[in-house]
């Protein structure tokens, strides 16, 4: 107990150091926490997006030849009567889904997706969260509507207002707004805006005869969903029965989104571990006299070790709790900055449960225990006699040949790590090798530190006068482990930060470069139920020069890859590649022209590399539960959709994929704004979405860059941990060398000379740290295009911006100036005798 009290009192005395250790553990743990939370949140988000319309049901049934969300004018209804005979159904709910035109008081006609249903059904499987309710909601029937808060705020609507709507037969319906809903559930994402109306109103407007066109089905046994699906498919052969949630797609999205953070976390955790090791080294060395005293009065070595480990555990647990708090803050930032980029603007709530918190605290404890283990073992191995005599630090002369061999091997590892990944075929292997090589580059750079400083020492030589301080400074840095640790920390943190900054800039520049000139149209639009007639009408609009229509299926499952194509395009001919420019040879041109000669598919070159596909290979596509075998006839380079896309003929996507209308229409126009206005007028109420290419590119670019903004934030956090470590080691080196410094003072070193020595040490650390961190960053950057080759389809062109390197250099200088100032101010207060006799 006395020993614990002594330890706690000591921690209280060393407040700043304790805080630095806690900060390091806390930040590392926080990133672990954030990464853990992010992965889970993105998966939940993906599932929430999939469940936007399906709620808690398990299956969704529509008529095969109807589309779920982009519908045609002619609706196909399904009778739910036969479902009554199916066992295993907990309940089912029919809805009428179609589109309406609304005319807000403040502007143009808008297109709105209308969902007609019974209020009780919504309450049962997809409850609406109301921001505001009107008394009319108590009897949800007739000309009533529920809108989203976003829509209400945008158009100045509130409950009780009337909104004019054209829906089916009801051309001038005066809808009473009875509810304003939050952006969850059905209103999670609105493209276009969504309105919920009573079933009787929809039935009358669409003349549906009391039948729904979409049926949501909940299974009574969640383990029997597959069987239930088969049973329903047997009874409804013309219906498409789909799972409400595709778990594979959700997991795939979550993994892809969280992977960059997980990789970044590794660097930060390694740094945190490094700081924990150095901090505990110092804490235990400082406490050695008391530990010696306890040992002399009978405390066993094992007991001392256990006490030291319990102290580390206390730090770890406290750091873990601190990390949870920091992690929550980090998640909020990530939620605000990054998630909207991957969720189409939808916010996400991070559900933190007790297991998550316990896991994080345990991670903090484990990190600290592992970090403390090295110094604890080291301390336990020091003989009691040496502890009592204060004879602890053993300066061992390293053999010159050993140093040379270490440096040479490190240089070889560095060079090999820079070059090896380029010889590996792009794919998961090259990604893993690239990440390993990046870590090796940092390790090699760290091992080169002593050699580089020794080289500087040789160049400077043993000098007198002003240079004496520099020479002593270099010697100190070369031989003092704490000062070397500072160089190591600078190398790790600055190289990672510079790497991330240059990497982000390069990705940004490459993305801009690629997109510039890739899209060869002026605006795109979605017209409800657009077919060839609409395309011809669009071409005839005043100001429109040319048009193109194509079909799409999003998130197309490819059993052959057990993965998804982000987009499967259905194109008429090579004209598509005139609007979305890409180079291809005559063979590919022939393949494009021959897409409709059977089931042929052209994939991207990115997929070709990833899955090692060759021309002639067969690829299975699954549409509405049925497999169709396509033959690969060519490859094209496409920067769209992350390079994960494929092209089949318009005919095949219509027949196999049951796509009836053009998904999107591209327009070329000399006077874009005027042509857009004319288009809107021509297709009054049928334009779902319209955007210029410039706006589209800017949006997608911003969403893309948000990922890298957050990754940069990880690097900045790594730097903060690095800075904490720098100051920790500055204190440590001062304490460790107090006696040495006092000896120098006793043999005639003046205070100003001591200041110069300290300043020289700072300069040597800054120079060597800068050189090695820049070398490491450059090394990692040379590997970055290989790493990105797995995740990104474009060849990353690295942009070495001098401003980033300049800023890093200034940062190092500022840090080391401050560290030198701290050391100098401490030496000025140092008593020579006390330091010599008692340290």
């Amino acid at each position, binding site marked *: 107990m006395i020993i614990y009290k002594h330890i706690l009192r000591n921690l209280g005395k060393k407040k700043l150091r304790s805080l630095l250790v806690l900060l390091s553990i806390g930040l590392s743990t926080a990133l672990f926490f954030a990464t853990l939370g992010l992965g889970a949140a993105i998966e939940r988000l993906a599932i929430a997006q999939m469940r936007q319309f399906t709620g808690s049901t398990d299956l969704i049934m529509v008529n095969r030849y109807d589309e779920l969300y982009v519908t045609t004018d002619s609706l196909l209804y399904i009778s739910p009567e036969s479902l009554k005979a199916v066992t295993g159904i907990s309940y089912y709910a029919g809805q009428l889904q179609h589109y309406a035109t609304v005319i807000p008081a403040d502007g143009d006609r808008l297109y709105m997706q209308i969902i007609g249903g019974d209020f009780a059904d919504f309450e049962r499987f997809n409850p609406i969260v109301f921001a505001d309710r009107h008394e009319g909601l108590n009897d949800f029937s007739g000309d009533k509507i529920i809108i989203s808060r976003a829509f209400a705020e945008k158009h100045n609507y509130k409950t009780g207002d009337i909104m004019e709507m054209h829906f089916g037969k009801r051309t001038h319906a005066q809808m009473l707004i009875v509810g304003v809903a939050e952006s969850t559930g059905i209103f999670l994402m609105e493209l276009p805006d969504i309105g919920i109306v009573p079933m009787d109103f929809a039935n009358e407007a669409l003349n549906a005869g009391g039948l729904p066109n979409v049926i949501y089905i909940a299974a009574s046994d969640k383990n029997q969903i597959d069987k239930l699906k088969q049973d329903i498919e047997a009874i409804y052969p013309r219906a498409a029965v789909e799972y409400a949630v595709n778990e594979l797609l959700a997991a795939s999205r979550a993994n892809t989104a969280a992977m960059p953070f997980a990789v970044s976390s590794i660097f930060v955790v390694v740094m945190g571990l490094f700081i924990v090791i150095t901090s505990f080294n110092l804490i235990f060395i400082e406490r050695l006299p008391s530990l010696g005293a306890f040992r002399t009065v009978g405390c066993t070595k094992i007991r001392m070790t256990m006490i030291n480990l319990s102290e580390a555990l206390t730090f770890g647990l406290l750091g873990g709790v601190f990390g949870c708090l920091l992690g929550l803050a980090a998640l909020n930032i990530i939620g605000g900055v990054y998630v909207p980029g991957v969720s189409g603007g939808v916010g996400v709530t991070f559900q933190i449960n007790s297991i998550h918190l316990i896991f994080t605290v345990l991670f903090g404890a484990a990190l600290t225990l592992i970090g403390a283990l090295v110094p604890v073992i080291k301390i336990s191995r020091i003989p009691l006699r040496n502890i009592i005599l204060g004879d602890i630090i053993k300066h061992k002369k390293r053999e010159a040949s050993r140093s040379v061999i270490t440096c040479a091997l490190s240089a070889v590892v560095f060079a090999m790590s820079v070059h090896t990944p380029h010889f590996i075929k792009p794919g998961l292997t090259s990604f893993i090798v690239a990440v390993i090589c990046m870590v090796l580059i940092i390790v090699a750079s760290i091992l080169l530190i002593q050699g580089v400083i020794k080289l500087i020492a040789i160049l400077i030589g043993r000098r*007198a006068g002003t240079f004496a301080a520099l020479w002593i400074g270099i010697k100190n840095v070369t031989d003092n482990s704490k000062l070397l640790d500072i160089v190591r920390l600078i190398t790790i943190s600055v190289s990672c930060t510079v790497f991330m900054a240059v990497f982000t800039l390069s990705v940004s520049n490459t993305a801009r470069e690629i997109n510039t000139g890739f899209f060869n149209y002026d605006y795109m639009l979605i017209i409800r139920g657009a077919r060839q007639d609409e395309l011809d009408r669009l071409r005839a609009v005043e100001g429109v020069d040319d048009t193109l229509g194509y079909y799409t299926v999003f998130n197309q499952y490819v059993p052959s890859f057990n993965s998804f194509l982000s987009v499967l395009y259905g194109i008429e001919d090579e004209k598509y590649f005139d609007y979305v420019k890409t180079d291809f040879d005559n063979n590919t041109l022939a393949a494009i022209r021959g897409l409709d000669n059977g089931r042929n598919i052209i994939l991207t070159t990115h997929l070709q590399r990833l899955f090692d596909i060759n021309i002639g290979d067969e690829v299975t596509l699954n549409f509405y539960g049925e497999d169709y075998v396509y033959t690969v006839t060519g490859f094209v380079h496409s920067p769209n959709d992350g390079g994960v896309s494929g092209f089949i003929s318009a005919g095949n996507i219509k027949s196999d994929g049951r796509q009836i209308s053009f998904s999107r229409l591209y327009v070329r126009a000399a006077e874009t704004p005027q042509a857009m206005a004319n288009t809107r007028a021509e297709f009054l109420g049928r334009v779902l979405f319209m955007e210029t290419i410039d706006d589209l590119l800017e949006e997608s670019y911003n969403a893309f860059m948000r990922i890298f903004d957050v990754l940069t934030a990880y690097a900045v956090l790594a730097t903060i941990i690095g800075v904490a470590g720098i100051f920790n080691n500055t204190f440590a080196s001062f304490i460790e060398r107090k006696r*040495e410094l006092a000896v120098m003072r006793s043999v*005639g070193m003046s205070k100003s000379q001591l200041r110069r020595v300290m300043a020289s040490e700072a300069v040597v650390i800054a120079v060597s740290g800068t050189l090695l961190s820049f070398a490491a960053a450059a090394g990692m950057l040379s590997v970055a295009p290989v790493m990105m080759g797995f995740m990104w389809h474009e060849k990353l062109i690295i942009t070495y911006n001098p401003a980033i390197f300049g800023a890093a250099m200034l940062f190092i200088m500022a840090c080391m100036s401050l560290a030198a100032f701290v050391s100098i101010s401490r030496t000025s207060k140092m008593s020579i005798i006390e330091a010599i006799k008692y340290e």
Partner: protein
Amino acid sequence: MANNAVVQVSGVSKSFPLEKNNVRVLDNVSLTVNRGDFLSIMGPSGSGKSTLLYLIGGLDKVCAGQILLNGKNIWDMNDRGQSVMRRREVGLVFQFYNLIPNLNVVDNILMPAILDGKKPKSLKKDLDVILDITGLADRKKHIPCELSGGQQQRVAIARALITNPDVILADEPIGNLDSAAGTQVLKLLQRVNSEKKKTIIMVTHNIEATAYGNRVINIKDGKIIESA
């Protein structure tokens, strides 16, 4: 002041704060050390003998009285002046050697001269002589941890000699050595005193060690109680 006096201590007192009280370690001590003296200061632990030595060496400040080194009051000087004095006029030898662990024998020895702005090449002759006297010629490139205690103490003595100071201040120079190494070190100090005419002030517990000097004083409770 006698013309031959190198160190003159007049009415020096020194106290250290201990909790709320002050503990007087030296009480009105006066002492003159002449050029060429080999003075041994003896006394029990805590008597103030090491404190007196450090005050002479300018490592600590007196509370009362003054100390003249070659006629100059150390505490009239600024830090730079005191440092220069420690480099040029005083050589310090400690019980635990206090060598710089990462520097080899030559660099440790040259340290005060380098700090004094002297070029290492210009010191080669002096260095060779000192290495010869101290018997370290074959240990030039070794770092302290590769040397025995006696050898380390000889390096400390060599370091104290490199700038050719007038006074060598030795605090328990054989306190951490076995008797053979201790004898070697004492003989070396005696040789330095007799051949190089250096004034030596040595603090010791060992009465046999005083035999190597020519003068002994005893200190008890901060006062000189016996001078011979």
